[in-house]
């Protein structure tokens, strides 16, 4: 009943996806286009762009790199250092930092860079996580806001105009054609594709005692401030062929640690290691759209010829969308306790956000779970 891309495993339910006449999805089409890219020329462009914005006399940083300590940000820093740049690395604190995540984060500085870690008020943050999970089914919404606002705020404060992000998710994961070749981030891009789900920071004021003064780090600087510094942003993934698996390989050569086994709900052991709440975030993608993180990873491998669609489909069926009883080994009860939520409350929120067209429900419309707590899809990956 659900239509899938003929090349990868993305379903038509995915936001912003479209299929061409061959039944190939926009993400795969985007990847196809990469074959025609002249990477030598792109690298030249990269050097030109960075030379335009970098500090001319070494008295300031050349650029700002938002980093989480993950495979991608580690790779980004390595690449920038190789190209002779002097970045200031900025971390917008994650919600529930894991031990391996903390080690990988501190590994960044060891690459040979200055590093600013901005930690958000955890008392308020946890309330925001709970509100976001309850209202829009996205526990990581506050984190996604900060990932964009914090580095931009620092750009203004330090007067460093150039932000260098990793991947333009539209290039790898597809999106409306008009934006696929976009390599500069701006405010309206964020509102559209940054995963804000229509929720705005201002909506939180007044909820659970949150007031405007708690939300300083979640606000962009004014347009005037952005203009005065000339803040702009580029995606490294536009200038260098981007591959998360390759990034992990390179990062490991510089001290990046991976997990012993595949992360729950995923097909990778080399990403999303820093935040215990990510399992919940990925699970809700599955509830709403019928696919999870395992599908994303599988598709990356399929496009690069590392695994056949058939073999990938089997793996995805085994691992995608499982109830997140643990994440990086931590039990869900412990993860939920941090945001003051019980498992029963969590399950009720799961049910609310489950797309009832995609999963079996009882005759009162409540999703049915199997003995492991997993939903029963009515669709079949094909």
């Amino acid at each position, binding site marked *: 009943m*659900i239509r899938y891309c003929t090349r990868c495993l993305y379903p*038509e*339910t*995915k*936001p*912003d*996806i*479209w299929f061409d006449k061959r039944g190939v999805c926009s993400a795969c089409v985007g990847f196809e286009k990469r074959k025609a890219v002249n990477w030598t020329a792109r690298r030249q462009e990269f050097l030109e762009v960075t030379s335009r914005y970098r500090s001319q006399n070494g008295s300031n940083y050349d650029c700002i790199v938002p980093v989480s300590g993950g495979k991608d940000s580690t790779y980004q820093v390595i690449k920038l250092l190789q190209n002779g740049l002097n970045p200031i690395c900025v971390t917008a604190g994650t919600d529930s930092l894991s031990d391996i995540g903390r080690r990988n984060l501190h590994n960044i500085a060891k690459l040979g860079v200055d590093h600013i870690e901005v930690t958000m008020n955890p008392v308020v943050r946890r309330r925001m996580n709970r509100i976001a999970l309850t*209202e*829009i*089914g*996205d526990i990581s919404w506050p984190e996604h806001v900060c990932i964009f606002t914090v580095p931009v705020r620092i750009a203004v404060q330090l007067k460093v105009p150039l932000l260098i992000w990793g991947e333009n998710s539209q290039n790898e994961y597809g999106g*409306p054609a008009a934006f696929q070749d976009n390599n500069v981030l701006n*405010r*309206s891009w964020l*509102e*559209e594709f940054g995963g804000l*789900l*229509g*929720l*705005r920071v*201002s*909506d939180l004021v007044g*909820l659970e005692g949150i007031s405007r003064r708690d939300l300083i780090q979640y606000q962009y600087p004014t347009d005037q401030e952005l203009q005065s510094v000339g803040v702009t942003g580029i995606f490294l993934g536009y200038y260098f062929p981007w591959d998360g698996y390759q990034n992990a390989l390179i990062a490991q050569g510089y001290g990046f640690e991976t997990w012993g086994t595949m992360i729950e709900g995923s097909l990778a052991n080399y990403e999303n290691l820093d935040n215990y709440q990510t399992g919940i975030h990925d699970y809700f993608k599955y509830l*709403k*759209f019928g696919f999870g993180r395992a599908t994303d990873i599988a598709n990356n491998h399929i496009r690069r010829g590392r695994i056949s669609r058939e073999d990938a489909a089997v793996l995805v069926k085994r691992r995608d969308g499982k109830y997140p009883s643990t994440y990086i080994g931590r039990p869900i009860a412990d993860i939920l306790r941090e945001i003051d939520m019980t498992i029963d409350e969590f399950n009720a929120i799961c049910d*609310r*956000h489950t*797309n*009832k*067209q*995609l999963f079996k429900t009882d005759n009162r*419309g409540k999703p049915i779970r199997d003995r492991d707590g997993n939903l029963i899809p009515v669709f079949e990956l094909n």
Partner: protein
Amino acid sequence: MLKTRIIPTLLFKGFGLVKGKGFDSWRRVGTALQSIRVYNLREVDELIFLDIAATPEKKTPDFRQIDELADNCFMPMTVGGGVTTIDDIRDLLAVGADKVAINTSALEIPELVRDGAREFGSQCIVVSIDVRKAANGKREVTSHCGKCATGRDPVEWAREVEALGAGEILLTSVERDGTMIGYDVDLLRDVSAAVNVPVIASGGCGNYGHMAEVLSSTRVSALAAASIFHFTAQTPREAKCYLAERGFQVRL
């Protein structure tokens, strides 16, 4: 004083919400539930929820889903898409819609409007009219989600549905929908002047200025918008503040 309403519109197709341009190039934008809950947090004046796949695919409304969505909000909600019988109207009202919007069916089965108004009251029946320019440059009403031309004039059709008993008219410009270049002020002016039931403007809103323009030059009672609330930092509340500053009556 009766306040002008600002009404976010949610368009549903298949599995989730979509946004389009000129009733085409539909883009999937996420789940209806998320949007409903966000608007609920914001306490908007009213919501319009339209299933645009229902009529083209000859499906009836998804009552279970409407029930669930209605359970997640406390706002007045108008629901439309695929309504073809009195029972459809009854069932939608039963699961939580406050008003039911009828579009293609009003054109094909005008008695549905009349009978619906008699049975449930005019105030429950909204007739949705989609308008575009025909090849000869004249305005015409379309059906089947903008796909079929009817050759009918919107002003005349609006008068007809009012006479049949419609309590409200949702008037949408097909070409402007999703473009954010502004409402079709001429169309809105002509139709709102021709009838005595409330008219809701729809299609093309890109900023608060467009809303003010419509309120100063036409007699519409409410402004519907989708793209600006979904894709930009603009919110219904800010829209109302803007309008209030310029002397329009809105609920703050």
